């Protein structure tokens, strides 16, 4: 097993094959194959609008009519499965089919405006293309076309032009069948039928951008991309999404060196043809506040631009003498994470490394080292498709891994997969998964896991999956309890981190005491393997297990210098304390894309490339390698690894690491650890006291990688504080009243929303405008808080 392994291809079940004849050609297809798909296999393109492989057949556009022997009328090939011995004639061999398709095309064009020259879809439009295929040269429709006000906002981001709409219902079926957010629907009837939103419910969906992509005409457009480019001027490059750990395959479209838009790329094993709005619209962050040259702090304290040689020399000089720490954050590619891990151990001689830019615990580190690092793919998306039961613990799929949410929902819809969740309340996401809620106050997860009822234990067979999320880090005993539950029942346990770089950083060894591939720092054989891979000897690696982020902050006075890469102090448990610690350390080197709180106080700032400007690999939550090429080829921005290599050179330390390909080779050669692993944690649960804070990051929030698109930001869910009826009554609060959530550090006011929920716990989003839990409360999930009723609402 290598670190960057791919899961085995899902096993293929034996299928019954049948023979169908299309345009005189015999073809063997699996039973159940739709005629339109079978025709595709032969290279016969039947026109279609409503048809979409991931949506249930609708047969409403009628563009795909074909002749089937024995049936008097032409039939929609998108809705009829091939029958054994069935004889089908498409437009290629049947005049009837051709006439039917031509007729339908003429009708579709009848009320369609001829505004292709100003339409976003022009150039990549299925209607344009298919009109070329089966349309008339000129129009016989000489009367006034149907008019609608245009465009109207479906959401801040999504715009609808109903004149262009051909009523294929792809968008409404996507909203209903895939996302489960059926806030758009068809209204009215006949030629007045149109897509619309209900007046009292806005289009609230994390997946709204998909409707723009699957619209077969230009009826649905995004504010972000509208009028920005012509498809034929775009260069498309495959990308892996840099936001969460779902591992979505995306397509980045570039025009004149600028990213114009991102689309979901079809990856049947991962995201299928969908992605979330964060992945689609969250790419504007590179446009503002970019650091364009190295910066060095002068003797007078001013940060000024410097040449690369000067800045690298300054960094190398500062990173000597005394204890060093390396804080990386969870946003790096595996290759860059590897470079940090290697640089820390070889060049800085330190094991004080941590990728976790968030509230954390030693139990979590032990859990990750014992169970996750170097374990390859324990659970894959395909396993979820086959699982008998999925238990979510401290994990909100819709917010934290939206494609995982869609895959789960698909299994729930298609085969009634049973899902249960140890969570504070039945969130919108859990409701869409039909999840059985095990209502749990924040901080109580470990005790609830230990006391699961027999009915749930019985469901946790070896075909069941337990998914744990990052907020369990601050619940003592939770990871221990989840591990022992998995061991006891045979259920498979997977950790779903929130960031694209988390799993890769773990595999690269960016935790104290953990070398790459899950190797314990203290194991001589492991040390020898790593040293060999790094072209050095074991005695050059640190011997003592280092400190984690919290310990580094607590002991900031011990350090001579710290190397910080893409860590946002605002994400840590106590942002002001983290900043104060960094300020206290005499020398700070920051590798960053954009100006940040860390670059503000750094002594040397070295600019690095954002994802669009470099190649690399992310490991998704499964452990699947998701490599991507450099999208913006003209960028000269350097990878973190390249910058670290330059600094190492200046320090006279040989690290290699010049090219992404070299790093990949190194990583693959070393592979995962086969020896004894770090011991699994065994932490006892702790009782909670008073009211606790339940919190996690919502998908669309104030994260720095989401800056730069106001339309996207406007689709964030409004901040509310969820409480149970009893808890709300306890402080005399009703729906809509203001509730004040406070700690010693400060308070947050939010409108209360009473819901089915565990008592004595209050939920707030972690990082939304008006609810910045870390900076306002210095609190993590499970922390004790006080709640009171606010003043006049």
């Amino acid at each position: 097993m290598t670190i960057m392994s791919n899961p085995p291809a899902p096993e293929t079940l034996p299928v019954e094959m049948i023979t169908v004849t299309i345009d005189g050609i015999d073809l063997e297809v699996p039973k159940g194959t739709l005629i339109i798909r079978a025709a595709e296999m032969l290279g016969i393109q039947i026109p279609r609008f409503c048809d979409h492989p991931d949506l249930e057949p609708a047969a409403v556009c009628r563009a795909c009519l074909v002749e089937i022997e024995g049936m008097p009328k032409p039939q929609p090939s998108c809705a009829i499965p091939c029958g054994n011995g069935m004889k089908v004639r498409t437009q290629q061999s049947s005049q009837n089919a051709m006439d039917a398709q031509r007729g339908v095309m003429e009708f579709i064009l009848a009320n369609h405006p001829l505004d292709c020259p100003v339409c976003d879809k022009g150039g990549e439009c299925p209607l344009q293309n298919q009109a070329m295929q089966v349309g008339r040269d000129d129009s016989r429709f000489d009367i006034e076309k149907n008019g609608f006000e245009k465009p109207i906002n479906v959401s801040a981001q999504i715009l609808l032009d109903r004149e262009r709409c051909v009523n294929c219902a792809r968008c409404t079926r996507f909203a209903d069948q895939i996302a489960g957010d059926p806030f758009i629907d068809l209204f009215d009837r006949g030629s007045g039928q149109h897509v619309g939103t209900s007046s009292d419910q806005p289009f609230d969906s994390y997946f709204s951008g998909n409707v723009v992509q699957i619209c077969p005409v230009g009826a649905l457009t995004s504010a972000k991309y509208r009028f920005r480019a012509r498809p034929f001027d775009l260069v498309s490059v495959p990308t892996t999404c840099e936001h969460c750990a779902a591992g979505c395959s995306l397509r980045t479209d570039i025009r004149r060196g600028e990213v114009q838009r991102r689309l979901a790329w079809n990856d049947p094993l991962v995201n299928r043809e969908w992605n979330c709005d964060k992945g689609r619209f969250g790419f504007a962050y590179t446009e503002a506040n970019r650091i364009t040259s190295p910066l060095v702090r002068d003797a007078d304290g001013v940060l000024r631009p410097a040449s690369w040689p000067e800045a690298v020399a300054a960094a190398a000089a500062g990173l000597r003498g005394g204890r060093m720490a390396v804080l990386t954050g969870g946003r790096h590619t595996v290759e860059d994470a590897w470079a940090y891990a290697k640089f820390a151990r070889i060049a800085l001689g330190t094991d004080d490394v941590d990728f976790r830019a968030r509230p954390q615990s030693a139990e979590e580190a032990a859990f990750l080292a014992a169970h996750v690092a170097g374990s390859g793919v324990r659970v894959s998306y395909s396993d979820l498709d086959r699982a008998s039961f999925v238990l979510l613990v401290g994990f909100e799929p819709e917010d934290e891994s939206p494609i995982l949410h869609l895959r789960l929902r698909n299994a729930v819809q298609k085969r009634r997969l049973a899902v249960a969740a140890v969570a504070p309340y039945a969130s919108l996401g859990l409701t869409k998964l039909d999840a059985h809620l095990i209502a749990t106050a924040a901080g109580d997860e470990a005790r609830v896991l230990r006391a699961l009822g027999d009915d749930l234990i019985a469901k946790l067979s070896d075909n069941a999956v337990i998914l744990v999320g990052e907020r369990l880090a601050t619940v003592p005993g939770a990871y221990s309890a989840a591990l022992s539950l998995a061991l006891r029942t045979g259920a498979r346990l997977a950790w779903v981190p929130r960031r694209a770089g988390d799993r890769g950083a773990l595999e690269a060894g960016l935790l104290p005491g953990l070398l790459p591939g899950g190797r314990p720092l203290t194991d001589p054989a492991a040390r020898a393997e790593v040293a060999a891979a790094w072209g050095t000897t074991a005695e050059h690696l640190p011997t003592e297990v280092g400190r984690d982020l919290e310990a580094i902050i607590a002991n900031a006075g011990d350090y001579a210098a710290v190397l910080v890469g893409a860590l946002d102090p605002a994400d840590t448990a106590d942002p002001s304390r983290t900043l104060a610690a960094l300020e206290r350390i005499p020398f700070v080197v920051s590798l960053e894309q954009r100006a940040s709180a860390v670059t503000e106080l750094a002594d040397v700032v070295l600019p690095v490339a954002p994802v669009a400007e470099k190649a690399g690999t992310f490991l998704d939550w499964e452990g699947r390698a998701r490599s991507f090429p450099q999208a913006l080829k003209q960028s000269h921005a350097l990878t973190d690894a390249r910058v670290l290599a330059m600094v190492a050179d200046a320090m006279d330390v040989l690290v290699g690491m010049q090219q992404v390909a070299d790093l990949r080779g190194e990583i693959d050669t070393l592979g995962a650890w086969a020896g004894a692993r770090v011991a699994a944690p065994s932490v006892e649960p702790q009782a909670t006291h008073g009211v606790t804070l339940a919190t996690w990051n919502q998908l669309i929030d104030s994260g720095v990688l989401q800056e730069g698109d106001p339309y996207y930001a406007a689709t964030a869910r409004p901040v509310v504080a969820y409480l149970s009826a009893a808890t709300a009554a306890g402080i005399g609060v009703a729906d809509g009243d203001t509730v004040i959530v406070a700690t010693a550090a400060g308070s947050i006011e939010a409108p209360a929303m009473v819901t089915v929920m565990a008592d004595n716990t209050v939920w707030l989003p972690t990082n939304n405008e008006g609810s910045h839990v870390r900076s306002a409360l210095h609190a993590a999930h499970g922390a004790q808080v006080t709640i009171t009723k606010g003043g006049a609402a």
Partner: protein
Amino acid sequence: MALTPILTAHWDEADSFTVAGYTRHHGYSAMRQALTTDPDAIIQLVKDSGLRGRGGAGFPTGMKWGFVPQDGRPHYLVVNADESEPGACKDIALILANPHALIEGVVIASHAIRAKRAFIYIRGEVPHAIRRMRAAVAEAYAAGHLGTNIHGTGIDCDIEVQPGGGAYICGEETALLNSLEGLRGQPRLKPPFPAVAGLYASPTVINNVETIANVPYLVRNGVEWFRQFGTEKSPGFKLMAISGHVNRPGVYEAPLGITMRELIEHAGGMRDGSRVKFWLPGGSSVPMLTEDHLDVPFTYEDMAANGTMLGTATPMVFDQHTSVVKAVARWLHFYKHESCGKCTPCREGTFWVTEIMHRLEAGHGQAGDIELLLDLCKQIAGKTFCPLGDAAATPIPAALKYFRDEFEAGMHTPADELFPPAAAFVGASA
């Protein structure tokens, strides 16, 4: 051929719509007999009778009942009383005058298909019929003919009367089911067929009002009695609602096989000064015929042989003062208005065709319009999601077959000029 009042036999009695009035003429006796009969034997009886659906399509009723799988899911009977076809006015009349025949039929049919719950879906525009039906159901409950353990037989049957929201498409059975479930009234993709997964995804039989009302008489009198009416392929009797330029338009009950000429006689003949110009055997959705076809028998097979359909067997007859173009334009306007919008050819086709018909009616037709109309109808017929499109594509080709010259006149002369509306009124000097 003489009229045969059976369903209509006692419509002239003041209390024909009450339990008392119905019971006076053997009402509810067939139900008592049926509830002690094996359900499959009833299905067989209906199969043997050759009863065909009276809603227009003429599907064999017994066969439909036989499709229902016996797999433990609840079954439903749905009565289609969404009578909205232009020209059709028989089900509403039946509900007003003889609702208990329908209720008795529902109980028997529910027993046959093992349904405990039946729905009567009535079009929303007829509140008087809805009130009448609800009152009749309440009265039947009070008399013990509905509810649990009906007359100690251990058989349950509940009826719910549900008004529609006013859409022609909800007469299409799957759109009706959607509407009943509270969804938009648009047809469903088949398969699955309602017999397998209909109302609430359960096996469902959907029958027309008149079909179900036939059942008590059939059960009471037997197959032989039933088959004495009509022909081999079109057995039984039929409610014929004749409308148009006859002296006594109304509902007449006659054996299938009666001719239009006879029916016009029964309806008091054509109005003074009127002669038949064109007529439609069963609603606006079937192709029109002319004076030459007055002796074609009202059977499924004879109508088909003459290029039309029996449909609902509710003929509309028009005299020489009527503009074909204007009549067809009205029907097309109706189909355009009632198209549900789900599929392209119906949504766009009815819109386009109606626009052309309106300009022909106004005398503003353009060269090529007739060919275009024929093309567009061909592009609609057989291409749509449900039969509404086929219906909409029917009137124009039929009208052009017999009255092409009137369409050609639409290139320059308004229909009202060619056929002054005043002339059509009774008493107008012809």
